[in-house]
């Protein structure tokens, strides 16, 4: 073995070790965060936080509020995102306009969430004169739209062209083909995309800070300030007293568990389909 070969092998080994070390360091940090959450969770979660509101040191109104905010956001964002995705894949396909919108939608997906909060403040809070639940939901809906557009677009592209042609050959109109053939064929993919979009916005804080703000009491009235789990975590964690901080940890653990559960569910649904 000559010197060049030895150097090459040495360099190879060095880089492989560094790369493995980088992976180990990265995973260690992430493992550290998850362990912290788990320990804090066992520490701070009691049944009473599910049955009491924030005024009584519980999280009930916040959990319900967060779900309502994200749920209403889905009711607004999902149909719009689906329709736009359908246009891109079924009508526009590769036209200049469709490509333009596709790119814009991807840019919008990466827009800073706080900027969306500021924008909604400008159109739904300042003119109305106060924070309200609707503003929070619309802000989250704006974050959902590009995610749903993108998954709809790619899921519909997986539907074989023959299915559409078969529908047209039977005399179905384009709308009928889309609604009763294409969407049905892509159903599981679309549901997965919607769930992931929901998981993405349910953990958002920044767009809610000055749109729906927060509420210590239980309410389902979207005209008022609306309770939010994430906004409360932000406020509680910065309080100096231990009970508040523990409540913030409890909220974080519940939020993370919810988000991970949705992600694992979509994975399970998707894999099941692949096996079929």
């Amino acid at each position, binding site marked *: 073995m000559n010197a060049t070969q030895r150097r090459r092998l040495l360099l190879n080994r060095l880089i492989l070790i560094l790369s493995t070390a980088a992976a180990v360091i990265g995973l260690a940090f992430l493992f550290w*965060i998850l362990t912290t959450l788990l320990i804090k969770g066992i520490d701070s979660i009691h049944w009473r936080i599910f049955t009491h509101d924030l005024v009584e040191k519980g999280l009930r109104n916040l959990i319900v509020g967060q779900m309502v905010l994200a749920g209403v956001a889905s009711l607004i964002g999902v149909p719009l995102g689906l*329709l736009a995705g359908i*246009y891109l894949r079924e*009508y526009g396909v590769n036209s200049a306009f469709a490509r333009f919108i*596709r790119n814009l939608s991807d840019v919008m997906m990466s827009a800073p969430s*706080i900027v969306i909060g500021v924008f909604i403040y400008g159109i739904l809070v300042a003119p109305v004169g106060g924070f309200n639940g609707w503003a929070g939901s619309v802000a989250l809906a704006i974050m959902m739209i590009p995610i749903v557009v993108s998954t709809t677009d790619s899921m519909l592209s997986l539907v074989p062209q023959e299915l559409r042609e078969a529908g047209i050959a039977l005399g179905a109109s384009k709308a009928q083909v889309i609604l009763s053939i294409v969407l049905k064929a892509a159903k599981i993919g679309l549901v997965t995309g919607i769930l992931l979009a929901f998981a993405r916005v349910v*953990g958002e*804080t920044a767009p809610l800070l000055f749109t729906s703000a927060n509420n210590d009491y239980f309410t389902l009235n979207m005209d008022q300030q609306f309770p939010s789990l994430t906004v409360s975590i932000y406020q509680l964690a910065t309080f100096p007293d231990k009970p508040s*901080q523990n409540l913030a940890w409890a909220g974080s653990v519940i939020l993370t568990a919810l*988000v991970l559960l949705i992600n694992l569910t979509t994975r399970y649904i998707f894999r099941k389909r692949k096996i079929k």
Partner: protein
Amino acid sequence: MFNRLFRLSSYSAATLVLVILAAIFGVLYYYARDAIHDFGFWHFITTSTWEVGEDDEGGVFGGLIPILGTLFSTGIAMLFAVPIAMGIAVFLTEISPEKLKAPVGIAIELLAAIPSIIYGMWGLFYFGPILQKLFGGQSNSLLTAGLVLGIMVIPFMAAISRDAINTTPSVLKESAYAMGATRFEVVKDVIFPYAKRGIIGSMILSLGRALGETMAVAFVIGGVFRFPHSLTQPTISIPVLLANNFAEAGDLELSAMFYMALILFGISFITITIAKFFFLKDQK
């Protein structure tokens, strides 16, 4: 009839994407126009004072400190995240035993889904104090913010890079191995050149995320309007300024806040557009 209506509504929904983006720029500009009129552009981004005038009216507002805070924290984050994320991506595709690939890959993807507020809280209570012990200074600082931000984008960057690396045809790799190339040489001379666009694209997308991130930073950057003379001092970034002070701002200050949001949106818009058009172009 229904056919036409359906086409029209889906067309409108697609156009809505354009309308919303235009409306964001329009509305931010509309509310920012007082500040733009009073401070101009160059003057605004080079002034480091942020002071409300007497009786909460008027004042002098400049964006230099939050702009620098945003750029510095993002810079630290990228310096930290890029090598580690690349290490993870290479490990997952070329080094890891087959058995580990799936579970580690899934773990990385799940971690990318965790809300950023969790990273922020962990930084505040655990990571910040440790950094303080190691490097002195304050626990909430530019360094803590940058590193927490970096840790937050690692899974995201690693997952996209891994997907880009996986697109390298195995025929290419196998021919290089057959010529006697070492694993590192295959990564350096075959995989990176082939997957370059996707990898750089993943870095820029992560950069965009880091620039606009609020919650991972808000807990740990300190949130004070001061120029950090060392890495371990606190400062503020644009998203954190907005998150902390927006709701209580007076007239002109609020306008200056909208101006800041407009600048942030501009920066992130340009970053993402570059990523899309130069690096991720041929992915769809």
